[in-house]
């Protein structure tokens, strides 16, 4: 059976170049970067090299603006809790959006228990935040704005540059969760004007369990992990050298491949969207243009997402659903609901996220397999297509 992986926003396979680097630092150059012997020195060099690569990828001017973490979730937690803790005497108001990843939303909610107030701005039907609305939400005690660069469910790109502009005039820190954006589009902290930016290894053909946080020089954050004096006191814990070296290699690979990758993904994306929109009762979620080139999110009327996934999986196709049904919550995606979608349509969402390894044949295969599955499920459905 042909296997087609279309869930690159959930996680990516590790790039062979990245895996080679990881193996080197697991088996041969396995030292602890705090050690002063030869093994330690080699580890330190890897750490430095990776920091420079990640800095380069996001346009940071100094390598020391990069702190390594255990993933996107920790980067988001550190950015938000670290900034909030450092600034709590200035004010306790945070602005975020309704379509953020849970790593941002639940972190903000945790801060609410510590006396912070959180304003969640809404989005339009395409999932876009209005910079005006963010501006208007700013209060005298606002200390942090956290708006993602690109959404993980529908791929919508946010106007972060515009948002940051208004914020920085008022000395409010701006964080952006760029976990999904970094592997698919050029990202530059200067162009964006952000102070904090999160990324994650396993979304960019790098290792799981490693991420990074860009912290603009001069931005004070309180460490959320206590212990040794690693990462200049911003994150304790023996550095995951194989993982970090792997992230560095993934950053270097992304820099090299990005122009090609974007073109390749856009071509496949167009083909898949066009094919899917031929199917009756199928609707494209998210923005038509302001969208990651690897994201195809649709809703299919009258049927439920997980059952489409199961049908696809039985045919060797791996995709994902906006519905969080598997978590037992039965809540459909908070992103689709924030976009004003009905519960029924939100339950019928399907996310296919393309990667560098997908081919045109993969797309054509999906376009052959998916419509009959939709038909079959609709036959079982008590609903009619509106």
């Amino acid at each position, binding site marked *: 059976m042909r296997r087609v992986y279309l869930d690159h926003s959930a996680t990516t396979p590790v790039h062979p170049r990245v895996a080679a680097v990881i193996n080197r630092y697991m088996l041969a150059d396995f030292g602890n970067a705090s050690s002063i012997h030869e093994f330690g020195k080699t580890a330190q060099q890897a750490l430095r090299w990776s920091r420079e690569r990640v800095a380069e990828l996001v346009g940071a001017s100094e390598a020391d603006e990069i702190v390594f973490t255990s993933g996107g979730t920790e980067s988001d937690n550190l950015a938000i809790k670290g900034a909030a803790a450092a600034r709590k005497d200035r004010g306790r108001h945070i602005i975020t959006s309704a379509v953020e990843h849970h790593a941002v939303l639940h972190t903000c909610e945790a801060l609410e228990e510590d006396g912070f107030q959180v304003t969640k701005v809404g989005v339009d039907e395409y999932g876009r935040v209005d910079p005006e609305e963010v501006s208007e939400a700013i209060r005298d005690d606002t200390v942090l704005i956290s708006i993602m660069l690109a959404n993980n469910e529908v791929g919508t790109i946010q106007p972060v540059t515009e948002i940051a502009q208004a914020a920085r005039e008022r000395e409010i820190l701006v964080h952006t969760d760029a976990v999904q954006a970094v592997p698919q589009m050029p990202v530059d902290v200067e162009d964006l004007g952000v102070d904090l930016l999160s990324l994650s290894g396993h979304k960019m053909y790098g290792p799981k369990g490693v991420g990074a946080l860009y912290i603009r020089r001069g931005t004070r954050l309180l460490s959320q992990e206590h212990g040794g004096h690693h990462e200049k006191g911003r994150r304790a814990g023996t550095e995951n050298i194989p993982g970090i070296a792997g992230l560095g290699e993934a950053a270097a690979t992304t820099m090299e491949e990005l122009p090609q990758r974007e073109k390749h993904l856009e071509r496949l994306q167009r083909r898949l969207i066009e094919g899917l929109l031929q199917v009756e009762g199928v609707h494209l979620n998210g923005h038509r243009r302001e969208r990651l080139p690897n994201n195809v999110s649709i809703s299919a009327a009258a049927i*439920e997402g997980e059952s489409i996934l*199961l049908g696809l999986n039985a045919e060797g196709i791996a995709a994902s659903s906006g519905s969080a049904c598997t978590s*037992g919550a039965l809540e459909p995606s908070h992103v689709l609901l924030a976009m004003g979608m009905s519960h029924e349509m939100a339950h019928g969402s399907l996310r296919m996220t393309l990667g560098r390894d997908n081919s045109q044949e993969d797309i054509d295969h999906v376009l052959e397999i998916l419509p009959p599955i939709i038909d079959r499920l609709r036959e079982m459905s008590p*609903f009619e297509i509106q």
Partner: protein
Amino acid sequence: MYTDKVMDHFMNPRNVGEIDDADGVGQVGNPVCGDVMAMYIKVKDDIITDAKFKTFGCGAAIATSSITTEMVVGKRVDEALKISNREVAEALDGLPSEKMHCSNLAADALKEAIDDYRSRDADEESE
């Protein structure tokens, strides 16, 4: 996460459809929760002779609907009423814990269909 039995009922559901001249119809769930199940039964001499379903929902919802229709055909109405959600789940060799509510839903839809049948029956008798 699903057993082979669940996957079999999901991929080859038994008794999909509606029964035009059903003796009882039950519909439970709502699109907000992500599961809607409609169950149709034919009853003759207090024995369920046919059952069909239509379901909007996840794999577990479809599989529990399917196996429930299989389980009830040939049973007396009062026997069918005793089918518990645990029995439905067991007939599928188990369900993931977060999906157990789906077997509830199937048992509920059946119960509604039987209630509907009984109330119609009562109406006829009282006519």
